């Protein structure tokens, strides 16, 4: 089960509202390579992993992603606090505003709502772990792109933290893949699916 800790994993204190930045950063809330998808991907894949260590790792990383989801939500919230109608119109935030006012809703930067089609749970540990490695790199690229588009240090600092976590998670998933293949047929990793064939 889950319990809530009344704190962010890393502090988010943005003083200047910036609806344009919010519209970009929200993609890590509900976009194709965002934190919500990351969490649900790992927490869904863990059931059929072939060993306890990998089940533990996916549980831990899936849980951390929820903390990242919360950090991104906090950033979007702080970036859209106390907006005037003038700022909303000028920044292009109007297309989001008309549907959600200043509420936090999981969409991509393009406005596409979050969908489970962004993730896969294939029930094959090699396949799932490769998806996880790719997912961490895709999120890392997204954070790199965000860093190209923003210049407020209050935004940059937590985004850099989140970017760094993608790299650490990538490293851990690489180790998990090694753990998984160590248990397989050395001459043919694909000889059977350890999550299905007994």
């Amino acid at each position: 089960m889950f319990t809530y800790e009344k704190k962010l994993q890393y502090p988010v204190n943005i003083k200047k509202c910036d609806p344009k930045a919010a519209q970009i950063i929200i993609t890590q809330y509900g976009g194709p390579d965002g934190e919500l998808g990351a969490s649900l991907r790992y927490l869904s894949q863990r059931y059929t992993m072939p060993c306890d260590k990998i089940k533990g790792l996916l549980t831990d990383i899936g849980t951390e992603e929820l903390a990242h989801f919360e950090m991104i939500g906090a950033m979007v919230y702080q970036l859209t606090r106390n907006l005037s109608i003038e700022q909303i119109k000028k920044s292009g935030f109007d297309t989001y505003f008309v549907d959600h006012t200043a509420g936090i809703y999981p969409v991509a930067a393009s406005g596409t709502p979050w969908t489970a089609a962004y993730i896969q749970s294939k029930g094959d540990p090699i396949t799932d772990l490769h998806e996880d490695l790719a997912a961490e790199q895709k999120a890392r690229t997204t954070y790199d792109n965000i860093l190209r588009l923003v210049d407020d240090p209050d935004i940059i600092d937590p985004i850099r933290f989140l970017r760094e976590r993608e790299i650490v998670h990538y490293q851990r998933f690489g180790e998990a893949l090694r753990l998984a293949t160590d248990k397989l047929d050395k001459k043919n990793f694909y000889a059977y699916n350890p999550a299905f064939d007994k």
Partner: protein
Amino acid sequence: MNEREALLREISKAQFAAWELHLYLDTHFPDARAVSLMNGYEKKYRALVARYEEKFGPLTAFCDSDERWTAGPWPWEGGKR
């Protein structure tokens, strides 16, 4: 039900009772009777968790001084015969 499962059941009972009162208090604070009941269940919960962790390893991610955190069975692996 083995000893570990029985202790987990006791933990869940105390935790659920405390949580139910916690939710009630979200909208009824400070109802003295509910506060006192909640504190009682919470105390019981903490004592049971301490007993569990000493015997069977960590229940949450941050008390893993040993390898038992990643040891099975995982919670979703019930019903196996």
